[in-house]
C-alpha cells in the first residue's frame, strides 16, 4: 500500500527536505502534497485523500496545534494520523500535541531513520 502524505510547513525548504528524507527513509510513498500553513492544509484536505499529515507547529495564519485540533474535532478527518515535525521541543508543546491526538512528534533537525520508525509505528 502506498501512502499519500500532506506536508504542512511555512518553509518551502523544509517541505522539499521532508520529501527527500521520506524517500531516503524508504517509506512506501504515493503522492506527496504540500501546504504552507494550517488554513491551506484544511483547504487541501477538503479535496484530497491522504493517509498522514506531517505538520510544523510555528506557522502564520493557523499554527500546527490549531490545525491538529481542527482535524481531530472533525468527523471526516478525526482518524487521520497527524505527526508534528517541529523545532518546538518544550514539554508543554509536546504534551499539548499528545493531548490533541498527535500520533508522533519529530524534532528538527531530523533524520530519515526517525521517519522510518514513525511510519512503522503508525502503520504496522
Amino acid at each position, binding site marked *: 500500500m502506498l501512502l499519500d502524505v500532506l506536508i504542512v510547513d511555512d518553509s518551502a525548504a523544509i517541505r522539499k527536505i521532508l520529501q527527500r528524507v521520506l524517500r531516503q527513509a524508504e517509506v512506501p510513498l504515493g503522492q506527496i502534497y504540500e501546504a504552507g500553513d494550517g488554513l491551506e492544509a484544511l483547504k487541501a484536505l477538503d479535496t484530497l485523500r491522504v493517509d498522514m499529515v506531517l505538520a510544523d507547529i510555528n*506557522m502564520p495564519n493557523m499554527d500546527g496545534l490549531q490545525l491538529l485540533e481542527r482535524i481531530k474535532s472533525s468527523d471526516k478527518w478525526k482518524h487521520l494520523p497527524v505527526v508534528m515535525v517541529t523545532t518546538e521541543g518544550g514539554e508543554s508543546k509536546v504534551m499539548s500535541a499528545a493531548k490533541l491526538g498527535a500520533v508522533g512528534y519529530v524534532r528538527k533537525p531530523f533524520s530519515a531513520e526517525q521517519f522510518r520508525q514513525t511510519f512503522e509505528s503508525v502503520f504496522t
Partner: protein
Amino acid sequence: MKTLDHGRVTDSIRSATRDVFSLMMGLEIQAEAPYEEANSTGNVDGVVALIGLAGQWTGGGILQCDAGLARKFYSSLLATECPADSDGVTEEVLDAVAEIANMIIGNVKNEIERDLGPIGMGIPSVVYGRNFTTRNAGSNWIVSPFSCDGGRMLVKFCLTQPASGGGSAELLGREFPRTKHAAPA
C-alpha cells in the same frame, strides 16, 4: 531569582549548530571563541535571519553570514545547485537560511527553557543587504562564531527578564502623581 547562564547558552548554541549542520546539511563547522557585543550588530553586509523570543523572558536569536555562505547553506540543505541569477541570494536561499536559524535558535531555546521556564518563539524574519544594522532593546548579544567552508557565520542570542510588574505600568504609576503635584494649589 533565575539567571541566564552565558556558558550554558554558548554550549547550547554549539551543540544545536553542530546537530543542524551535520544531520541536515552534511557540513563541518569549527566553533571559535565566543564573545559578547553591544545590542546593535554594527554594519552588516550579507544575510541576517532574526527570531524573536517572548514570555517571562524576552530576546531573540540571529544567524548572520555573507551571501556566499548563504548560497552554500542552500545547496547543502536542499542537496541541489544554487540558482545562478544575479548574486544568487534568491527567496529560496533566504528561506533556507531562515529555516537553519529556526532550527538552531529553537533548539537553544528548548535547552534554556529547562532552566528558565516556557519561552515563546516567533517566526523567522530574514534580511539581505549591504551596510545595515539590526538592534534589540534588551541586553548584549552572546555571540558564537563558526568557520565553515572558508567562510564565517555568527550565531547570536540574547535574553532578558523584564522588571517584575512590567515597564509601562511602572512608568505610568510614577508619571500620574508628578503631574498632579505640578499644578499650583
